């Protein structure tokens, strides 16, 4: 039996092999989307510190998809002096030994009827290690629940619960500034800031 004969006899099987392998891989990876792609912001729009960028994405609530656009500028990252929007003025920023508190100065702009409260803020160091904005921890008694909107004029919420008016509180300004505080180990340098209103979309701003 010749070699050419083997290839000839199995030609249809050989044609089907890559298709079958691709189908098997696709069938076995049905959880990649839920458990990896949607697990954190991965589809990142890139920007640099000091420039205004328009970030467009979509959230969803009881009414369906809620597309939105927001303009964002990272002014800088600096050592923090006070907590961001604590419920009580008695809560003070007092990080333990070996821990630094940094404030992320952001300017944002959007029409006051755009719901922007459900936002996540993460900072990354030069090695890609992530530290997130925490509302409370053993070292932080309490900060504002959203790092992206003014604590005293949050603007509308997503319409998530029937019977609950999503549009409460004072009108949000057209342009505003926030300074959420993130705790990191001392000596760690912030290289990137990631903002997201729900994975997989996110805005990655390089700190310069």
């Amino acid at each position: 039996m010749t070699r050419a004969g083997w290839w000839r006899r199995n030609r249809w099987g050989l044609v089907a092999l890559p298709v079958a392998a691709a189908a098997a891989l696709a069938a076995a990876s049905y959880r990649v989307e839920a458990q990896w792609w949607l697990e954190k912001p991965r589809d990142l729009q890139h920007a640099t510190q000091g420039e205004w960028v328009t970030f467009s994405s979509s959230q969803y609530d009881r009414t369906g998809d809620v597309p939105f656009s927001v303009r964002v500028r990272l002014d800088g990252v600096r050592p923090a002096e006070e907590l961001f929007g604590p419920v009580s003025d008695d809560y003070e920023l007092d990080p333990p030994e070996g821990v630094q508190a940094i404030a992320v100065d952001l300017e944002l702009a959007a029409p006051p009827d755009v719901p922007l409260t459900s936002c996540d803020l993460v900072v990354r160091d030069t090695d890609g290690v992530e530290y997130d904005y925490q509302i409370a921890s053993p070292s932080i008694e309490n900060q504002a629940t959203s790092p992206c909107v003014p604590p005293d004029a949050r603007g509308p919420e997503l319409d998530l619960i029937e019977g609950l008016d999503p549009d409460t509180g004072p009108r949000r300004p057209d342009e505003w500034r926030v300074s959420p505080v993130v705790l990191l180990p001392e000596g760690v340098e912030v290289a990137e800031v990631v903002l997201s209103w729900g994975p997989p979309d996110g805005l990655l701003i390089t700190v310069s």
Partner: protein
Amino acid sequence: MGGRRVSRPPVTPFSRLSRQAAFAVLLVAALATGRAVEGLMPAETEASAPFERAGSLGEPVETRWGTVEVTAVQGSTRIVDSLGTGRISAGVYVVVDWTYTAAGEPQIPSYVAIRDGDGRVFRTSSERNPYDSGGEAQPGIPRRLAVAVELPADAVAGAHLVVALPDNDEDHRRDDIAVVDLGLTQDDAGAWAASEEPVEVAGPADGPDAEAP
């Protein structure tokens, strides 16, 4: 198959039947052997078992998701939790002070239990077996934690602390778990079962231990 023809003895209906029967017997035998091997060997459990990273008291245990170090072990029949609530056991309360340092991203172990020498597992919860994690810990910032687990006195000697990231123990498969030998003996069990001195179960705190040498 190929174009080559092999001369065979003439096929009678009887010989065809016996060949088919032999094939069926062989097939069933092969399936039965496979099933028996699968049943006898621990293939199912071993393939999905967690990776146990072992250590002992005072020794940092490195895992995929961070570092676990047990710093102190105490015991008594009484504890006082971080809110000041006292609890009394007819067995023994084992109180473990430990430190967790997250790796890569903010996270916190949700599963903390004590496993005795016989493999019995005693889990922490929020009520009688307090464990307050304080929420996700930022990477690189040590989180000081304490747990108290109520055990029968015969489970104390040889007990290990088991720490894992997901709360559900079925989700520990193919992931690291930290298993720390608490170095406890029958003498500890006897002394603690007789002790009525309450042991404090501290709340979570960040940063290195200020009292550490």
